[in-house]
């Protein structure tokens, strides 16, 4: 909702490098170099460049330009929940 709301440039976020470890549990390929194009503002870049909030209560990765949700990751014991985008369903993976 980038419309009429002024945003505080939030200093509390990390970046997609922080997703490397958690994603390594469910992806067998390196994730930080994956390329992504924002469906909301068309900005493109690597997963490493996403702005990442968390890790509690979950990891939320957003477009660095417009804050559109790219990916969400939640650890629940032996499970890892992954949702691509902000409004699509989530997959619950059983990990080691």
């Amino acid at each position: 909702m980038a419309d009429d709301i002024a945003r505080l440039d939030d200093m509390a976020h990390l970046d997609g490098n922080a997703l490397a470890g958690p994603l390594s549990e469910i992806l067998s390929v390196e994730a930080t170099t994956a390329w992504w194009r924002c469906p909301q503002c068309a900005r493109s870049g690597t997963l490493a460049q996403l702005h990442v909030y968390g890790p509690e209560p979950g990891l939320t990765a957003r477009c660095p330009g417009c804050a559109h949700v790219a990916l969400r990751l939640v650890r629940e014991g032996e499970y890892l929940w992954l949702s691509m985008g902000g409004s699509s369903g989530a997959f619950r993976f059983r990990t080691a």
Partner: protein
Amino acid sequence: MTSFSPGFRGRARTLADRLPPGQYPTEQFPVLSAGPTPRVDTENWTFTITTESGAAHSWTWAEMMALPQQETTTDIHCVTRWSKFDTPWRGVPLDAFFEDVETAADFVVAHSYGGYTTNLPLEDLLDGKAWIAHTYDGYPLSPEHGGPARLLVPHLYLWKSAKWVRGLRLGHEDEPGFWESVGYHNYGDPWREQRNWGD
């Protein structure tokens, strides 16, 4: 008037009784976020309740401040395991907003500036159980804690107390919100330790 049993306090409720399972007490007030902190001016702020039929009831900041105000001191419990006792809030009970709202809906999706959502049964917002809170510890609620106003539903885990709340959408279906749709529990009762989907 005679005062009965002056000074009697009964057995003091220990802090341990107030701590739900799996929680630890904190004096701090940690800030957790899922995105950038929205900056909303009270001049532009509105709160809207939309019923299942699409009827919308809106309040501006001034209109909200003209509603009956309440102070409440309550314990809050975060799903990340911290609990904070005796937090002092001031705000408007949801009952005051719902005075003039006609609805047969059972469920609510609270939605916020910045896009956050969370879902609850409507009855969990009524009968003195929830507020739109704008003041914390005597000061205007800071943006990092959900200001200018947040939903406050202390009997559920704090992720249900939507920061930067903008409105409520009433409906017949229980629609999982931001965290509920990615593994968190649909209801979130700290006393039954309902943290995740399978709990």
